[in-house]
């Protein structure tokens, strides 16, 4: 029942490969051509600025929000800080409960129907309820973020803890390992890759959760900014904000990838090599 998202690797792989093969010039070329056509079309009045904000305006907006007015930083800080705190708290809760439920067959059996129901419900839909209950402000935003990023780590940790390889269990039993030892030396390390996958999903969910909370509360944060700009039909600035989120999303993607390479090192060729050399160095001492 684990929630997986391993497949976007195939695309980033393709992308990185083609970038390396000097096709980068072609990619850039195509991109620039499209942008220029867009710009031209907009200036000629063929393209409705509502749907197709002029590229030069978008660039100008970037300049405005980042440097001249520099208003985006405040909102960025608001959104990102909440996302990170909510993610850490929510996913820790998910991991903790997932492990707890995973180790206890009775609790698992009783919790199963509730988990199924929870899984089917779009958790982000609870946002208005939480805002109404906890009031506008940081508390409800945090609650929403924690709620949306609780589930994937919970399910993944649960799955990781339950699905321990039978043969490995037998090996440990044959070595007379205690329950704690089995936990520490087998179950936990084995579950790490799945847990990491859950964390990655949780972080993306946290970002979405924050945006939805900001759409409703409309006080601060990138979401509120997008809303305000769109309301004022300032599509260029709205798009500048959206592209900012693209950059953030990309940083999250790459960041989590690096983290995964570090923590679940044994799944990656590079990680194995790195750890091999490291272990060799630490062992060979007098």
């Amino acid at each position, binding site marked *: 029942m684990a929630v997986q998202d391993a497949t976007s690797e*195939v695309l980033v792989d*393709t992308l990185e490969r083609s970038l390396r093969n000097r096709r980068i010039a072609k990619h850039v070329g195509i991109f620039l051509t499209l942008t220029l056509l867009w710009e031209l079309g907009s200036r000629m009045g063929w393209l409705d600025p509502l749907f197709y904000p002029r590229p030069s305006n978008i660039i100008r907006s970037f300049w405005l929000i980042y440097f001249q007015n520099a208003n985006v930083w405040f909102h960025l800080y608001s959104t990102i800080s909440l996302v990170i705190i909510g993610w850490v708290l929510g996913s820790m809760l998910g991991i903790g409960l997932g492990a707890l439920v995973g180790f206890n067959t009775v609790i698992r059996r009783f919790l199963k129907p509730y988990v199924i129901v929870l899984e089917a419900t779009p958790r982000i839909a609870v946002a208005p309820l939480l805002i109404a209950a906890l009031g506008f402000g940081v508390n409800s935003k945090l609650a929403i973020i924690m709620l949306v990023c609780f589930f994937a780590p919970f399910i993944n940790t649960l799955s990781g803890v339950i699905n321990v390889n039978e043969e490995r269990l037998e090996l440990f039993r044959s070595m007379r390992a205690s329950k704690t030892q089995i936990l520490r030396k087998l179950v936990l390390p084995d579950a790490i890759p799945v847990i990491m996958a859950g964390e990655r999903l949780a972080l993306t969910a946290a970002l979405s959760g924050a945006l939805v909370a900001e759409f409703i509360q409309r006080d601060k944060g990138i979401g509120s900014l997008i809303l305000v700009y769109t309301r004022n039909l300032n599509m260029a600035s709205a798009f500048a904000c959206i592209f900012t989120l693209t950059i953030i999303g*990309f940083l999250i993607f790459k960041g989590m990838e690096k983290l995964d390479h570090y923590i679940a090192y044994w799944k990656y060729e590079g990680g194995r090599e790195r750890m091999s050399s490291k272990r060799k160095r630490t062992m060979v001492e007098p």
Partner: protein
Amino acid sequence: MSVSDQPIPLSGRILDIGVRFLPHFVLFAVIIGAWEISVATGLITSIIIPRPSAIWSAIVELYITEGTIYRHFFITLTEAVVGFAIGAGVAVSLAIASSLWDPFRRYVTPYAVVLNVTPGIALTPVIIAWFGYGMGSKIALAAIISFFPIFVNTLTGLVQVDEDREELFNSLGASNVQVFRKLRAPAALPLMFAGFKIGLTTALIGAVVAEFAQATDGVGVLMSRFSFQLNMAASLATLLSMTVIGLILFYSMEFLDDRIVFWRRESRRAAASRARARTWAAQAKK
């Protein structure tokens, strides 16, 4: 190899099922009971957490007495399904095209990656500005958000190469079209359906979030409205219908998956075997 080969009487089977579900019923009753008492005695403030009895009255009113919910239920369900259909249609087409023509894949990939890392939810205000307050914007957001997981999963499915099988088809002199139709496409179905399941869930989320932003009809709107009227009981009663939508979508897709990708479950394999044997026998008679 059972102890007795007599068929179990119906009454016995009902009792069996009853016994299995009884603990769950008991637990549920206990939770509801404790909840009701806590709110009634003021242990928990009823502003944030309504009484089960209040929720029940709301359910009765919405679903039975006044039946207001059904119109909204079907609207949201339609938005999610249509949005999913559009997103899936585009995603699968693009994925097929990408798998068949390498250059296409290379040049489409960067834009797909950008779409992936950007939180789709961020587009909500923009989509509403473009498509207005009606169902159109909900469907559009659902389609956009569900596009990516389906695209990535389908592409990965089509691109994964089983060397042994490819070799077989090669040795039989199969054309490219035949390889695609008889090997790649069926082999891709499991992953495709995995993508569909994710896409369907995200489509529902898209529809609901768009409803939050601005709409007159839909369960998202209803929930939002009740929440801000501080009518928590009705809000939760509405949340229930969202869960039902989620369950309907999930199990429908499970059913399709089971039927179309029949070779993954023994019972389905057996049924398909029998069906094919019958058709074969019928044809042989002619």
